[in-house]
């Protein structure tokens, strides 16, 4: 095999071997690195805690409870007619994170959402009767002053998004499954 033949397309056998070795080396390094990166992601038992059932029967209208789901508080509020009314008469296009109240609830009287401020993760006030509820009759985050309305939508302050609604379903009239 002559030298000319070997390099006629601009690359030598040596180049090909270098590139192949480097490519396999990179894949090999990556496949060894991945377990050490992925081990930091939520483990199987952590993920297994991702479904809970909540009995809604004891919650009176106007009351709210907080349950833990995936290490985060979930706000469950039995809304009054006034609160539903307030949430539904807002001009949706004027909201920072446009969402209608209908999109956020399965049944209008039950508002279920993750109670973690979308700014930097504090827990907003407004669950207890004596709490500050902010300017929009909903929740108020004391850390950096975000106001959420009676549908948990961001109305004022630094938070970029509405309080997120977790996946949930009514298993019976008074029982829900979150997750």
């Amino acid at each position, binding site marked *: 095999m002559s030298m000319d033949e070997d390099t006629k397309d601009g690359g030598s056998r040596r180049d090909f071997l270098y590139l192949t070795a480097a490519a396999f080396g990179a894949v090999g390094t990556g496949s060894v690195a991945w377990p050490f990166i992925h081990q*930091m*992601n*939520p483990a199987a038992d952590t993920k297994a805690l991702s479904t809970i059932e909540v009995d809604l029967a004891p919650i009176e209208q106007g009351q709210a409870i907080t349950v833990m789901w995936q*290490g985060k508080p979930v706000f469950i509020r039995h809304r009054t007619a006034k609160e539903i009314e307030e949430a539904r008469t807002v001009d949706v296009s004027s909201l920072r994170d446009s969402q209608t109240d209908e999109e956020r609830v399965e049944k209008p009287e039950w508002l279920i959402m993750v109670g*973690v401020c979308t700014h*930097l993760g*504090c*827990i907003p006030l407004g669950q207890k009767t004596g709490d500050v509820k902010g300017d929009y009759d909903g929740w108020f985050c004391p*850390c950096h002053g975000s106001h959420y309305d009676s549908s948990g939508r961001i109305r004022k302050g630094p938070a970029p998004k509405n309080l997120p609604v977790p996946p949930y379903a009514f298993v019976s009239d008074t029982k829900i499954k979150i997750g």
Partner: protein
Amino acid sequence: MGSGNRQPFDNPVIEWVDSRLPVFTLMNKEYGVFPTPKNFNYFWNFGAIAMVMLILMLVTGITLAMHYAAHTDVAFSSVERIMRDVNFGWLIRYMHMNGASFFFIAVYIHIFRGLYYGSYKQPRELLWMLGVLILLLMMATAFMGYVLPWGQMSFWGATVITNLFSALPVVGPGIVEWLWGGFAVDNPTLNRFFSLHYLLPFVIFAVVFLHVWALHVTGSNNPSGIEPNGPQDTIPFHPYYTMKDTAGLLLFLLIYCIFTFFMPNALGHPDNYIEANPLVTPAHIVPEWYFLPYYAILRAVTFDTNLFLLIGLVCAAYLVAVNLWFTKKPENCPVATTFKIPVLQDIPMKALEPLMAAGAVLFLGIGGMIAFMPDMGMAKMMDAAAPVLVEAKLGGVLAMFGSIAMLFVLPFIDRHPYRSAVFRPWFKVAVLLLTIDFFVLTYVGGKPAEGLYVLVAQAATAYYFAFFLVIIPFLNKFEPRVPLPPSIHQYVLDKKAKKKQKSDDYMNALKPEAAE
């Protein structure tokens, strides 16, 4: 290292070891006879002091780890057990707690020294950058260490800081879950923070080794900023600076001991003695004092950066660049000529500049109005035309990391040939203002983000970035250059003569016959 030109030692044991592994020769070369500028002031103590604090933190930290348990069920009570039941546990924990603060004090003074006397400049750029890397590692270590006692501030500090990463587009939320190992700060988070908090100090130690190695290649800077010319300018490190460092260290440790023994919680936050509760957020979440300046910068960005604001900023940056960053103002647009953009590359700078200035004023005006006064009628109308490009949260995170990045690239921004602020009258003012700025940021970082505090934080953040991006380039070009003394030796003599002149004048003024 060849041992061919090694000086033999008199002690036979030392000689036996040294001829096989020349550690004694190395130590003597680097810390015994090592030629060091003779005019150090006490600011030059703080490298050695920081080193001592690092060792102190390692020793106390390893000791605490013998009693601490990294599990959310018991972490808080295991720390309380250290405080109450472990023999001298209270002392070791208070040493570690206050040691962190004093390590940062030492390092901040050390950084100030580097800034003021231009120690970051050629040929010490890499030495400086390794130092900034150490600062970053220290921040990560301190942050994770503060989480371990699992108090309210631990938990909520960790929540707020890890949530910062959620500001990153696309990958943000995934990164946050990856950091947490779950869906909130919880046991997996505490566990890995403990592991990393134990690891990182050793990484710091390794980088400190490189930092010191780089220092011993270039040699130390000194208050005059003039390189030593010969033996008349230097003295051996030992005994001169071993003694001076020890004197400064003892004074520093004395103050440290006053805190550790008499006011051990003065620099901490009382809420961290309440066990972490994921359902209750403290009214004011504040980080440890040494993070407050960066926290202030983070929170100073309260506004969304919209398209107009960005265009305005680009126009302003363009003007700063052509006028200050370039040594000589380019004839045509440098971007257009590099990329050979037709038409644009033919427009002379003289015509382009007023256009850019008008653009800067117009777009900064409108963009600023939309960002800062969103409720105004005009702003509301323009709002639709200028989409938000960088949300406030991401903007804050970028500014915070950017503030450290500024330090990292400083050696390449500052091209003024003189190092020391002693011979740079304008730089001296600017760098002292930066120091005050740092204190202002520290102050507002500890206050709630509302009202006047936000405005002050924004002004202080603006100065911080302007120092690096506008003032330093301006000084490169326009700061007057007074003649430098030819050597450190001459600098010291001049200084002495000046001092003598002053005291002579004073004495003469006191004598009655001299007054006539």
